[in-house]
């Protein structure tokens, strides 16, 4: 009997928690409101949290290259570029997932981005006091309303844009 109750509870909890966060219809809102607070502690404690938004609602279209620049003797030069292909294949997926989440700029994460830049100072043995900054070089894959011919992709030249992110100075002691 206990097993049956547990199975039904788990089915309910997983089903409710997995409802897309972006879904705002009446059923979703009612379900979250009615059961959300009850199932959430169980789902979180057992690490069964889940949102199945891989390549959804639409696949990610922004392609970002992270450029780390330093300023030495009044001149700016590139310390390293983090882009697809610059990391060994066995580390690639996890590392870019980590970078993508970490470096997507948000004021709450400024301290973390600074820590990341300080880690680059230590990795590349940059002198203390050197100015270091993160530059986002990106393009957006166009969204089409209908399928375009293959030739369009073959001749596609992206419009690159640049955004200057966090700037800090290399510390005297490592992170």
């Amino acid at each position, binding site marked *: 009997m206990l097993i049956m109750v547990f199975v039904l509870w788990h089915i309910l909890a997983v089903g409710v928690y997995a409802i897309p966060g972006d879904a705002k219809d009446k059923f979703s809102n009612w379900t979250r409101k009615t059961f959300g607070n009850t199932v959430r502690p169980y789902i979180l404690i057992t690490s069964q949290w889940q949102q199945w938004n891989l390549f959804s609602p639409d696949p990610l279209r922004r392609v970002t290259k992270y450029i780390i620049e330093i300023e030495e003797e009044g001149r700016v030069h590139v310390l390293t570029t983090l882009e697809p292909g610059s990391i060994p294949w*066995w580390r690639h*997926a996890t590392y*870019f997932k980590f970078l993508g989440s970490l470096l997507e700029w948000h004021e709450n994460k400024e301290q*973390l981005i600074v820590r990341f830049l300080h880690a680059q100072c230590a990795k590349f043995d940059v002198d203390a006091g050197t100015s270091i900054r993160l530059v986002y070089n990106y393009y957006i*894959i166009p969204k089409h309303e209908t399928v375009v011919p293959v030739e369009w992709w073959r001749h596609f030249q992206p419009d690159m844009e640049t955004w200057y992110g966090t700037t800090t100075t290399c510390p005297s002691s490592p992170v």
Partner: protein
Amino acid sequence: MVRDNDNMSLLTCMTTPSRLQRILHGIDRFFFRKISAQGFGLMRIGWALTAFLFLLAQWNDITMYYSNEGIIPSDMTGLITRTHHRFTLLHSITEPSAVFTLYLLLLFTLLCSALGIFTRATTILSTILLFSFHERDPYTLGGGDTVLRHLGFLLSIAPCLSAFTLDRAHRQWQKWKRTGMLLPVPHMSIWPWRLLLWQLIIIYGASLWYKSLGDMWWSGTAAVSALHHPTFVRWPLWFMDYLSPFAVFMNFFTLFVHIGWVSLLIPEWLTEPFPRWTWHGSRRRLFLMLGAVFHGSILIIMDAGSFSLAMMAGYAGLLLEEDFALVRNWFSKHWYTLRQAQGDTHITVLYDGRCGFCKRSTFWLTLCDHLHRLKFVNFWNEEERKNAAPNICTEQLNRAMHIVVPSSLQKLQTYSGFDAFRELAAHLPPFWILLPFLYVPGIAPIGRCIYAWIAKRRITPSSSP
């Protein structure tokens, strides 16, 4: 006076279950019907090996991701994730060396779980450690890691984990020594299987729901966009252009697979009145196969972390006894049809019944003989030896293992030593992964030398006539 039809009514009442009893019986069967535990055994191996391999790939980055000397110290995790209802051992274990030690422990327990050594304890411990690493730094996580957490949870609570374990192999050996027979296939109640099925349906259902909130998937333009995102693809963009003509098909095939899995919620009895519109075989099996094609393609084309392998590990957990029987019959159909005219369709393995090592070897071969093709003959039994291999003398048999294989041309082919082992590997599913290597040019002479060295050490005074 009790009349006959009264007796019949009384008997009918006593033997025919009431509606309530039928309902209760149905509920009991829904949760507690016995199924083969082999599916969950395969899932455990797939889960543990997938988690092991992808964590191993993080070897150089462990302290960066998970220790206080990394990018996100534990006092800053509140910036990236919740602080309530969160359990992680790494909240208090923060020193790089301690974190790395815990990581090594996780790798070790995953390997033990895969091999089936102290299976229950190592599976639960590796699940707890996996949760701890995931909760410490969610920024490293992809969909595959989420699937691995769910599978780990289900494996930890499943009532039977003994299938395909070294723990069980030890008990099998004890039984085989005594009786010459193996233990029956392990079984478990169906309720963990139902939870696994529900989880997989939720994955596809929620994903389909999310896709419906956008517009690219339904316009057929999502797949081609993903194929041109350099972060997600394994191959250069110029190569992906060659796949672009197939992108629309891939797009709608993805949606079809999602819808198919959600359709598994519809019970069979609801589809029976519409035979023209429904699949006549098992829908579960159909979508397992289509899903394997789908995730296999993603594994080859895209770099989506552990997602494809984790999902296929989950698929293994849904396999039932009838699926194993179907696969066995499919492999055996051709084999038996071509050899039936010869009478005996088995491969005869002639072994030294006086040699402990040889008896243990035949035990392991029996364990691996999932297609039931082998028959063992102790060559010291003169009558059996003459029936199986009249042209081979005892002295030759004593030097190396011999096998007699009925070929499709109604002949008997004999192999010995390494060649016999290589021939047997083709008939034993656990050895199929080795098969390509056994036929690499140059391997055979090396294999024959190694076999001869082992066989020479095997011959002891007790094994000679």
